[in-house]
């Protein structure tokens, strides 16, 4: 293994193991702050020991053993053992003979012959996700806590990704931890109907992280790779932990399919490229494959749910519409599957939006539908759809509806009106890359030149 490989492999190992380690420490000590400190200490111990003593054969097992031992020690030190002894007995049993406290190396169980497999302990990562996305927390707290506790991102990384000061994120995380402790939120995995009720919050948090990363609401960059890749990682983790949930697969599909275009969305100079202008050869085929496979799994899981007589959807034979996430995944799949922009099946996309509108008639969906209608039937067919939307409170304060209407008006030859809408959009846009794009399009409208046809990117 080359030196670069070692760096990448260890970075990936620490990142991947982080939620598992936090979860096991949390289960033992029952406090998120203490669990985070324990895991951080274990990783720093690895940093101090591994390079000098040699890398362990099974790094994840080493980390897990060290983490569990340190958590058990912390518990004993705090004199809280009696209360939790029963709960952690099985964990202590699994670690029997694991060596001295924190001392999984040298001579610890993790490096002993025959103990190369991961220690047999319950996987608590799902509990960790559910506690981070608990409804007692405000949404911004859920997002920050999930990125820190499940994603293992540092406070500074999260702050950079959201373009806010470090202190703001640190405060959100501290407040969230305090709220969970004060409200004595249990570290458990909701079951049955409660899980169904709380899963949407988890999906929302991951989706929000992705959205913020895919089109940064502020700042110089169009995207925040740290957020989109973390959202993708979280979605994959969720499908791994909840393989029967269609919405988990659908979210994974949406993220994978959108991320596949990430590199193609700007040119070398950082200029925003519309989907029509993008070089499809540079779309990431591996992500497209994963996205389409996840979409297929979402459809399958949805069918299986319907066929299950115990399902809340009703007995087999009943039909119900696909969920909004599955529909959005289908939309993303339509774009990914089209060999070229001209070959995009806009009629199918409009039909998909119609179905989506019938379930969730949100203003954002209506706006996207209008774009699809414009592509399928021309701008004149779509412009009347936008008139009401510019008055929608959810949209009127963002640049998007004005940018779309400006584009359609420009294409319909209504130059003066288009310029007015571009001006309104420019007043509201915060992202620098989008601002440059809108400025260029406004100039094109003023000069009565072509520009691009589609605003989608």
């Amino acid at each position, binding site marked *: 293994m080359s*030196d*670069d490989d*070692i*760096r*990448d*492999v*260890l*970075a*990936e*190992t*620490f*990142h991947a*193991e*982080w939620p598992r380690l936090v979860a096991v420490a949390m289960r033992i000590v029952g406090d998120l702050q203490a669990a985070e400190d324990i*895991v*951080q*200490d274990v*990783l*720093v*111990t*690895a*940093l*101090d*020991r*591994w*390079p*000098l*003593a040699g*890398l362990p054969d099974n790094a994840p097992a080493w980390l897990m053993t060290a983490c569990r031992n340190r958590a058990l020690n912390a518990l004993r030190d705090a004199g809280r053992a009696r209360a939790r002894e029963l709960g952690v007995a099985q964990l202590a049993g699994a670690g029997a003979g694991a060596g001295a*406290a*924190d*001392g999984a190396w040298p001579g610890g169980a993790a490096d002993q012959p025959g103990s190369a497999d991961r220690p047999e302990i319950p996987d608590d990562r799902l509990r960790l996700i559910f506690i981070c996305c608990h409804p007692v927390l405000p949404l911004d707290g859920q997002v920050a806590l999930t990125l820190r506790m499940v994603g*293992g*991102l*540092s*406070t*500074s*990384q999260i702050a950079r990704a959201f373009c806010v000061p*470090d202190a703001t994120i640190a405060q959100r995380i501290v407040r969230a931890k305090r709220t969970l402790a004060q409200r004595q939120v249990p570290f458990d995995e909701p079951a049955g109907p409660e899980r169904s009720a709380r899963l949407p919050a988890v999906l929302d948090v991951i989706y929000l992280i992705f959205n913020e990363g895919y089109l940064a609401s502020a700042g110089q960059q169009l995207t925040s790779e740290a957020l989109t890749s973390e959202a993708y990682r979280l979605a994959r983790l969720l499908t791994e932990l909840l393989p029967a949930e269609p919405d988990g697969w659908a979210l994974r599909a949406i993220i994978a399919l959108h991320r596949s275009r990430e590199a193609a969305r700007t040119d070398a100079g950082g200029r925003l490229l519309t989907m029509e202008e993008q070089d499809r050869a540079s779309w990431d085929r591996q992500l497209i494959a994963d996205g389409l496979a996840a979409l297929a799994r979402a459809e399958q899981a949805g069918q299986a749910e319907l066929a299950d007589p115990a399902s809340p959807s009703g007995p087999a034979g009943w039909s119900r519409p696909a969920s909004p996430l599955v529909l959005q995944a289908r939309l993303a799949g339509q774009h990914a599957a089209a060999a070229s922009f001209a070959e995009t099946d806009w009629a199918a996309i409009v039909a998909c939006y119609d179905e989506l509108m019938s379930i969730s008639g949100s203003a954002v969906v209506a706006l996207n539908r209008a774009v699809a209608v414009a592509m399928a039937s021309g701008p004149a067919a779509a412009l009347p759809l936008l008139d009401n939307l510019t008055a929608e409170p959810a949209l009127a304060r963002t640049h998007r509806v004005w940018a779309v209407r400006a584009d359609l008006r420009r294409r319909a030859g209504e130059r003066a009106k288009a310029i007015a809408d571009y001006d309104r959009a420019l007043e509201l846009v915060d992202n620098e890359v989008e601002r440059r794009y809108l400025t260029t399009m406004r100039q094109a409208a003023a000069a009565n030149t072509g520009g691009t046809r589609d605003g989608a990117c």
Partner: protein
Amino acid sequence: MTGRRFALVLARNERPAHASAAELGRLTGELAAWVSALRRWRLLVMAGPAAEDDAGPVRGLLVVAASDARSARTLADSCSAAAGHRVTVLELDAPRAAAPVPPVPPDGARCAA
């Protein structure tokens, strides 16, 4: 392996500040790569982490061969940059000061001794 031997004492008072899990992994890989490079270049005599977790700020020790103290310091600085440790250089094979000249014994005594 030629040259003089120097001990590089790796110390850290606090955890690496503001590090994410992936960053800590990368730092670990960075330091491991640095140690393995020293080994490849046949500059590393021995290395080991602190035996106890509560060894205070001292996190480990490397004994390296270097032609002089300046070269040892250069190695130490590259390690420090790699993993955020504070590195103290101790010279193990210090050039000896010239031995004091013994008083000249009376003629013939040296041979007798």
